[in-house]
């Protein structure tokens, strides 16, 4: 055994990623502030590496299969036919939206429809905005991320080259929904690091849909961050529909920073992916905010879906509602961790968290954990988790009306999931997702 400290070569891909950042420095046209943030993030990655199951926040989620590989950027343009097929799959019938489309993490203007946004609404891609208007990028980048960066956040900061920028001026009510579309298709495994930056001005209103969809069976890695700054009295509905390939890995961070009396509601659907980890971090940094986080995850085969949410009640008189539902089958694994901080200041907080899980097989597992840290004394905080099979009382009720066992089961399974989809306000999207859900959970 050697007693001298020699640096151990890392077992993950951090070095390969960091050298990619280093290599790009020479030819980058990016502003100095961004380059220095990228370098700092790369240094953090080198020092801290990717999270492991020894980290509390990743105890049940082994991301080694992702971290061990330095996924290259997708070099070759994907096959036209494949992209057309994905574009069609990602189309929401009847959704009259402004759409910004990315293919393998890069903006695809020919597939997008970002012109014609109303006055006061700026919708563009990050890469071109860095060149055209770096000040706006600087004012949005990293501002909603209030929690310590973990490895994937650092990796995203180091490498994210593109993504959507949406800036809605104060008082503007955006009529049509805004749709961020991420398509993935390439002949070989690749990684895409995307950064979406959203600002919704004072008293402005917008509905955002963010879709991820990839070629069935293909391995790739999506590492996505969306930051949302919601100003005072803004109103945002944010729907995240993750339909990646079942062999793809998907790591996401949604970071929200909300102002006084802002109303924010999100629905996060995890339908695809092999290893999936979604972090939602919300900072309620003023009074009277209403924040709703809903989620649905369907996990079968050997897949894993991990949802970590953190709601930071920093100021008084805010309410948060959280409902996550999961259906786990085969050897599927689910993780739910719901942190709620109620700061000393945050009197009259009203926080409710619910996690409901259906386990359909003996080998499926769930680790669910509420984590409430309350430092104020006059608050209402409730949490609950139910894990189980279908409700026997409901089964009997259906059967007592002549509905057969299998049919009754499928009705209840579908209804369990539809409960989340029905909360989506954008009607065309809701109808579309109800149809998708029928494909995944057919009623026979």
């Amino acid at each position, binding site marked *: 055994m050697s007693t001298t400290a020699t640096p151990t070569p890392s077992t993950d891909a951090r070095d390969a990623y960091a050298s990619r950042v280093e290599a790009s420095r020479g030819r980058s046209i990016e502003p100095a502030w961004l380059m220095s943030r990228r370098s700092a993030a790369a240094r953090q990655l080198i020092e801290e590496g990717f999270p492991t199951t020894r980290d509390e926040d990743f105890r049940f989620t082994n991301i080694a299969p992702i971290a061990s590989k330095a996924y290259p950027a997708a070099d070759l343009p994907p096959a036209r036919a494949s992209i057309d097929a994905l574009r069609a799959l990602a189309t929401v019938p009847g959704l009259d939206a402004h759409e910004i489309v990315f293919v393998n993490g890069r903006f695809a203007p020919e597939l997008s429809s970002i012109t014609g946004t109303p006055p006061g609404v700026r919708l563009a891609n990050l890469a071109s905005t860095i060149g055209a208007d770096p000040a706006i990028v600087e004012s949005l980048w990293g501002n909603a991320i209030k929690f310590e960066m973990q490895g994937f956040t650092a990796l995203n900061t180091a490498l994210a080259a593109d993504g959507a920028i949406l800036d809605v001026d104060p008082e503007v009510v955006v009529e049509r929904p805004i749709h961020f579309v991420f398509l993935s298709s390439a002949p070989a495994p690749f990684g895409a690091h995307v950064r979406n930056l959203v600002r919704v001005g004072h008293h402005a209103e917008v509905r955002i849909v963010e879709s991820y969809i990839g070629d069935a069976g293909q391995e790739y890695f999506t590492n996505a961050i969306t930051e949302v700054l919601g100003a005072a009295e803004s109103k945002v509905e944010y729907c995240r529909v993750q339909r990646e390939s079942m062999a793809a890995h998907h790591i996401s961070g949604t970071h929200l920073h909300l102002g006084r009396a802002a109303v924010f509601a999100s629905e996060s659907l995890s339908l695809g992916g092999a290893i999936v980890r979604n972090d939602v971090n919300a900072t309620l940094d003023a009074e009277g905010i209403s924040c709703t986080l809903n989620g649905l995850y369907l996990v079968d085969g050997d897949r894993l879906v991990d949802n970590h949410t953190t709601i930071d009640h920093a100021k008084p008189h805010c309410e948060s509602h959280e409902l996550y539902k999961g259906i786990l089958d085969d050897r599927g694994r689910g993780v739910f961790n719901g942190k709620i901080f109620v700061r000393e200041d945050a009197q009259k907080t009203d926080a409710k968290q619910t996690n409901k899980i259906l386990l359909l097989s003996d080998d499926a597992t769930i680790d669910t954990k509420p984590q409430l840290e309350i430092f104020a004394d006059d608050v209402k905080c409730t949490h609950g988790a139910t894990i189980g099979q279908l409700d026997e009382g409901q089964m*009997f009720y259906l059967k*007592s009306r002549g509905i057969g066992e299998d049919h009754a089961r499928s009705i209840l399974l579908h209804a369990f999931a*539809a*409960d989340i989809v029905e909360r989506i306000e954008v009607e065309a999207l809701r109808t579309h997702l109800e149809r998708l859900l029928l494909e995944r959970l057919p009623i026979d």
Partner: protein
Amino acid sequence: MLQITNLQARVEDKPILKGINLTVKPGEVHAIMGPNGSGKSTLAGVLAGKGEYEVTGGEVTFDGKDLLDLDPEERAREGLFLAFQYPVEIPGVSNSYFLKAALNAVRKHRGEAEVDAIEFMKLVKAKMKVLEMDPAFLGRSVNQGFSGGEKKRNEIFQMAVLEPRLALLDETDSGLDIDALQVVSKGVNALRSPERATIVVTHYQRLLNYIVPDFVHVLANGRIIRSGGKELALELEAKGYGWLDQGAA
């Protein structure tokens, strides 16, 4: 139509029904009355096939078939209907979807063609009128957020659509005000016919003013201790159940 012979059942280790004998013929209305805990709801649950009851003895035939051998859904398709004392809420399943699935399951079993959406709507709208229900209710989730009265009305509405040959009403009157009671009774009476029978399980005589029984049975401690005509219900109302318990002892 229904023949119950020496029926015994228990919940977990506790015997509840200790030898019930009852014969119901087509066209008849039977009322089963009795104090709380006498086994009234257990009897209704056993007949409908509720899982938590274990039949430990006796037999039940329904049109000559061994009822206890049938799954709950098969009993329903054969024409048995239980109006629940506590109707179950099913979020995410609309009343119309639920009822159409039930109706078509029953029709299929009878060898009849399934109804399409248009025929279904025509049928249910007519029935809703009888029960004075708002058509908007069809789009709502089954019993979710319904008041006690609305839930009971929904039970009778389902019964009206499914047209069972034997209806079991389990404390349908509990939690109903007098107006709702009349509407619900109207729905039940509309279904009375020489081919159909009804068993009304109730604690109070009140409902029997509206759904007039041919026979009244008093259940106490898991046995029918007295049977008579509709006047027995009035006697019970006047004297209470204690009078009978003493007589039986």
